[in-house]
């Protein structure tokens, strides 16, 4: 540092030098950089996660501190037909919706992988259902499923004359369940399609050329090249999809609120109804905690998907 040539500047420089030097020591800088993120996550994610598990073992209600009651909440849930109903519907909802999203999303991705005009515009349009707030598109579905003025009923009854009466979409249990699943699939297709499209674009065309020279049919090319190459990304996207479908809340809360006669409750909406609306925080937390085993299962699935990807591409485990 040239103190002799530029005294005023050097002085100005030296003034904060201690602070600057402190910020330049690596351990201090690491701590400072990680503090905001780790702090936020610790206070609003890790702590509530632990607190939630603790609450599940207490009989806390809104306005009253609970006492430890052991497994009482869970024992009660096991005898509660509504909880079993919610588990049943959550599993069906996740299974059918995930299957639908991936079948249709994969198909859409394969279609988008072709060359045609206005491709990027089309890709942009297709993502719209995923960008728009779920509750607001759910409201549109609520209106589409209206018992009296449903546009689908209008099409089937007055235009196509396939039915003589309006479809009762949300009035009885099974139609309501499938209507919600259809809305969930509608919302999930864009995410799956665009993610898988990104995966498809990384597959080298030379693989297909080689296969075609060997006389592989279109189905064989899909079965033995596209599908195995897509496995890793499919596993990851599917894990995300399963986790967020299983814990879905918005669609059901906006369209049916668990009705008719509690037939469309997912675990999340049941937890909300008991915990926040009903004030039984302990019981609501127990319902929420009962989702964790399923989520752990999905995360392990993701881990093995990732491990396989590295092995496939010959990367080291960094």
């Amino acid at each position: 540092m040239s103190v002799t040539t530029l005294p005023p500047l050097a002085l100005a420089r030296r003034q904060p030098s201690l602070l600057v030097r402190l910020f330049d020591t690596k351990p201090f800088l690491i701590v400072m950089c990680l503090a905001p993120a780790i702090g936020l996550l610790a206070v609003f994610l890790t702590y509530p996660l632990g607190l939630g598990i603790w609450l599940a073992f207490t009989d806390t209600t809104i306005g009253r501190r609970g006492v430890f009651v052991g497994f009482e909440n869970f024992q009660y849930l096991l005898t509660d037909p509504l909880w079993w109903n919610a588990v049943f519907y959550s599993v069906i909802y996740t299974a059918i919706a995930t299957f639908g999203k991936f079948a249709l999303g994969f198909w859409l991705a394969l279609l988008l992988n072709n060359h045609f005009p206005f491709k990027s515009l089309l890709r942009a349009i297709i993502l719209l259902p995923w960008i728009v707030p779920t509750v607001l598109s759910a409201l549109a579905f609520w209106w589409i499923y209206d018992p009296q003025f449903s546009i689908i009923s209008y099409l089937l009854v007055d235009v196509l004359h396939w039915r003589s009466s309006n479809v009762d979409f949300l009035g009885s249990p099974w139609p309501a369940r499938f209507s919600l699943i259809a809305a969930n699939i509608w919302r999930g297709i864009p995410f799956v399609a665009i993610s898988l499209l990104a995966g498809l674009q990384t597959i080298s065309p030379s693989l297909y050329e080689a296969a075609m020279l060997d006389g592989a049919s279109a189905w064989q090319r899909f079965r033995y090249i596209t599908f195995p190459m897509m496995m890793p990304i499919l596993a990851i996207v599917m894990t995300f999809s399963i986790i967020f479908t299983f814990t879905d809340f918005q669609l059901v809360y906006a369209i049916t609120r668990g009705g008719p006669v509690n037939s469309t409750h997912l675990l999340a909406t049941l937890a909300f109804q008991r915990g926040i609306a009903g004030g039984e925080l302990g019981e609501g937390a127990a319902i929420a905690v009962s989702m964790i085993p399923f989520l752990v299962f999905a995360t392990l699935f993701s881990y093995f998907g990732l491990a396989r990807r590295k092995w496939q591409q010959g990367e080291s485990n960094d």
Partner: protein
Amino acid sequence: MTDTVAQPSVADAKAAPDTMAWDSGLRRLMMIYLPLGCFVLILLFPFYWMAITSFKPNAELLNYKEHNPFWITSPTLAHIKHLLFDTAYPRWLWTTMLVAIGSTTLSLIASTLAAYAIERLRFRGSPYVGLGIYLAYLVPPSILFIPLATVVVQFGLFDSPMALILVYPTFLVPFCTWLLIGYFKSIPYELEECALVDGATRLQILRRITLPLAVPGLISAGIFSFTLSWNEFIYALAFIQSGANKTVPVAILTELVTGDVYQWGALMAGSLLGSLPVAVFYSLFVDYYVSSLTGAVKE
């Protein structure tokens, strides 16, 4: 890519007359454009229906016998006027905007610093910190909202938009951090080494070299966070009680749905207006959305 390019081998011999018979243009139409058209139609129909309902007068809305429901004969702005002047809708929009901008800013700052520390300051255990933050993304809001509600009450933030600004980073920070780690990886480390040799401090390097190069990544993370916070529902539903402080998605569902007769015109107008900001935002930054969506999945 057409099948005719391939050598006519044993497997293709059978398919060859088939492809000849099909006019290749017609085949393309049936195999690609027709299904694509159906997809686009189904994916966009709810929005069309939402838009057309919000401009229909009530008489047309509830009478399919005399009016074709797919079109409007006498469009009206009555529903939108009702929404803007007879309800607290502008206030809800403002709250939502405030919460989205606040939480996005907070998460961007926190995750940029965290990503820089994990990717560039490399310390013992930095991969584990990264993995921990990634795992935080897998914790869904549905299992957190009950205990978080008690935490929010403890902090005296219940019924305040501040609660949402502080809570939304729990799902924004993991996402942004992973996106930015990926982005920082793509910036050559040699640039930073040069600066270090020239005597720059770490913070100067971050501010003058790494951040300007990571601007596209920052934009991706920013618009994504904005969209996610705009769309968030369950926390806003659980933590906000008074009508004035609600965000748009919650307010439409709890304040506009009243009684047994639903005001579909106003509801759809509310949904349309609530979707517009993100849709406009989206149309301006489509490529960033696609890259962040696919980038985050690939990481």
